[in-house]
């Protein structure tokens, strides 16, 4: 009995001891888990706050504490990416993907690391993998489209953006980008629809009216284009591209005085914009002020010395001023430069898409 009792006590003691040890270890593990969770939450907060250095520190500690924790590894990759530590991000991403090859976010973000490094082929490979793992994510399709856009693969980018918009139709920028893809693949009406959709979602979206104006202009609908460019000017009053396109459309529409005013502002905002300078000269010439046109045209020809167009306008301006010999010289320069230009236009020689 005693023996039994002793034995029972021994067993019980052992059991208690084991329980105590277990409790100690359990408490320690629980504490570690809480610490890890805190690190991850802190890292996320830092990311959201834009404190990418803080995020890196948190996630580095988290992954040291729990190298097999997926979320900590995701956070580390993302924080490196945000902190622009692309080499570290690449290493972290590769290492994590070796362990979790089926994780869509890791594939997605490593793809973005490659995209930021300019390695678009690798980026696409990873992003496509992410897409294969989770084809329902707006952001993955969107980022695939970004890479394709940077490669000028407008048709393929359009497909991705169409998918993205199916999952989230309320992101204005996706509509803008899809519109640009359509515009560049000769689907201008669809482009217009997308730009309009973007502006319905966010009437202040950067360059939304600009792109819509460009689409209208490419259809030859100058009044609509001018209206959109004017709206864009209210958002971006000093954007030389917007001012130039507005001025160009006004010039095309025969509103030479207004065109000259906008083109002058475009040139002031960006004195290196030879097209704006050229159009300014042309507008002034058409307005009947050949003398004022001369400096603008000369400036345009200085900026683009191989472009014959400015010399053509210069010749016309000088001719109207009665400076026939100088006009003839400009025509000759024009003729010489024409011979150096690549062929363009005409039957079966349209621009290659």
């Amino acid at each position, binding site marked *: 009995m005693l023996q039994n009792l002793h034995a029972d006590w021994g067993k019980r003691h052992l059991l208690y001891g084991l329980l105590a040890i277990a409790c100690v270890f359990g408490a320690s593990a629980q504490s570690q888990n809480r610490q890890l969770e805190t690190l991850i939450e802190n890292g996320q907060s830092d990311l959201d706050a834009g404190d990418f250095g803080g995020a890196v520190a948190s996630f580095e500690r988290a992954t040291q504490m729990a190298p097999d924790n997926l979320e900590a590894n995701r956070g580390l990759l*993302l924080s490196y990416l945000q902190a622009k530590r692309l080499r570290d991000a690449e290493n972290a991403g590769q290492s994590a993907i070796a362990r979790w090859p089926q994780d869509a976010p890791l594939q997605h973000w490593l793809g973005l690391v490659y995209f930021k490094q300019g390695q678009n082929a690798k980026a696409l490979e990873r992003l496509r993998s992410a897409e294969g793992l989770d084809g329902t994510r707006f952001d993955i399709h969107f980022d695939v489209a970004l890479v394709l856009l940077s490669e000028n693969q407008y048709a393929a980018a359009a497909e991705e953006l169409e998918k993205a918009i199916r999952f989230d139709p309320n992101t204005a920028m996706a509509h803008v980008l899809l519109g640009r893809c359509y515009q560049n693949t000769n689907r201008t009406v669809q482009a217009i629809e997308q730009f309009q959709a973007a502006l319905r979602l966010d009437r202040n979206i950067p360059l939304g009216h600009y792109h819509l104006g460009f689409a209208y202009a490419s259809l030859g609908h100058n009044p609509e284009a001018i209206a959109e460019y004017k709206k864009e000017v209210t958002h971006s009053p000093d954007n030389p591209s917007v001012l130039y396109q507005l001025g160009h459309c006004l010039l095309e529409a025969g509103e030479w005085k207004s065109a000259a005013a906008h083109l002058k502002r475009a040139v002031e905002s960006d004195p290196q914009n030879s097209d704006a300078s050229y159009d300014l000269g042309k507008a002034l010439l058409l307005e009947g002020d050949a003398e004022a046109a001369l400096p603008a045209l000369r400036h345009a020809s200085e900026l683009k010395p191989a472009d014959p167009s400015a010399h053509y306008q210069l010749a016309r301006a000088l001719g109207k001023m009665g400076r026939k010999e100088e006009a003839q010289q400009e025509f000759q320069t*024009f003729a010489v430069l024409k011979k150096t230009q690549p062929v363009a236009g*005409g039957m079966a020689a349209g621009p290659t898409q």
Partner: protein
Amino acid sequence: MRSRPSLRLRFPGRWVAAAMLCLATCALPQASQQSNRSQPRTDHVAAARKIGNQQVHASPVSFADVTRAAGIDFSLTCGGPEKRYIMESMCGGIAVFDYDNDGWMDIFLVNGSTLEDLKAGKCHLGKLYRNNHDGTFTDVSAKSGINHCGWGFGAAVGDYDNDGWEDIYITYLDGAVLYHNNHDGTFTDVTAKAGVGNLGRWGTSAAFGDYDNDGNLDLYVANYVDLDLDHLPELGQGPFCQYRGIPVSCGPRGLKGGRDRLYHNNGDGTFTDVSEKLNIDPNAYYGLGVLWLDYDLDGCLDLYVADDSSPSMLYHGDCKGGFTEVGVQAGVAYSADGREQAGMGIDSADYDNDGWPDIAKANFSDDSNNLYHNDHKGEFTDLAGPANFGPVSIPFLGFGLKFLDFDNDGGKDIFVANGHVNPQVDQHSFGVTYAERPLLFHNLNNGKFEEIGMAAGTPLARRYVARGAATADFFNDGSEDLLVSVLDGPPLLLRNQAKKGHWLRVKTIGAASNHDGFGTRVQIKAGGLTQTAEVRANSSFESASDPRLHFGLGAATRADSIAIHWPSGKTDTLGPESADQELVIQEGQGVLARHAHVPAPSKPAQSRQHLTHRTP
């Protein structure tokens, strides 16, 4: 560690927004990456059509397709459906002329061929249709003697021998044929005797005009490409055999241009080729459109030639039988930015009624058509943009182009026949289509036009692969109608059914001047408006139109005065004259005849009445 059911870690939007902004600003649409002047903008027809639909509004203008009802059963053959070779896209000549001198416009339609049939000697003849005066035509081809077996392109009309009967000149892939009108409904091939064979050359448009004012019509022939039919460049096989990266027929770039020909009429039924002597087309550009006009009103004909993929030429006549090429200086050689264009059809009219002839030119798609306004000092300014004529045309590939006043309001409107050259575009998603709708620009009489093709009746809203275009009052009802050739199909005879104003038509008969009165400038004053027009038959693309001058008078019921400035230098002054009639005016003799307008033509003999003959 508990699991996180929803992953909070995400790619922050801030970076995305920055990337987007960069892409948005740094990678603008392709066309804007280049300057607006370096390349035409890319675009497409379907888009324009859809947008155009949104802008359709009611229009008093209406054209009816009466081709079948009129008995026109012609079908144009022009190569195979793939258009593997460049000549398979360029057919479509039309000649509208009164070959039997009955006062009604007849029709000749030039036919093309196929490479196989041409080599096998199988003929595809053109057809001559006589106007029955009742809205129908009769095919009189078999009797006509116009039976040259070849691959035809353009037609020019003129009374080269001043016998009072219109002759016809037809260009072919190899050479050309001049048919003399025998006054009995038949024609005789007089090419060899006349010396206007254009041998070994592929002529497109041609035009008669008396450039030295000797009373005899001279002849200009635009030549396109020197082709060797045994060594034709194959579709897609070369750097100039691509359109937007897809294989298409080759040329004209990369192919040798055909030098144009100017034949001086010796006055004895023969011509002398003066091309070299007068330094005509020394660079052998790819000629497609020809227009005689007196742009500086010096009384001598000048010449404008539209070239494909190369500068267009303006030859200023010096009144002594010589020319100086002034296209660049005059501002009509290039686009407004000094860029070569693919000029096709051309025509001239005083669209702003300032007394000076302006020029319109149709171009390739992705480019604007031109409206060269005459600045009166030997220079032109392309006002296509401000006039709302250019931008609308950007998606369309224009061929035939004619000024007309379809609503008789005194402002010249413009019709443009469109159609792409590469059927392959339909297999791709460029948005560009092979068949395109025509464009009809209504002159708003304030320097601007409004494109109303979609609103001008169903036939103009449909799509065609159109080429030649001619205007005429086929039904002598005071309305300018349209005839359009369509590749690989029947033409379109479009009867003008618009509600319209009053009108006056002038037919000129030269005495000291050439019998047709080509080059005569007629000025009429009516309703406070002065209109000026020049007599010609040949313009547009490969086509000849009704040479009678048509003036819309709007609400005015009479022309107060009519001044006729003949090429001989003489001027006849007439008036007042009632509206709604045709005046036949002979140089130095005044009105020879007045033909009244009968509103509902039904019977040939009753539809026209000679009212008076008078000798001033």
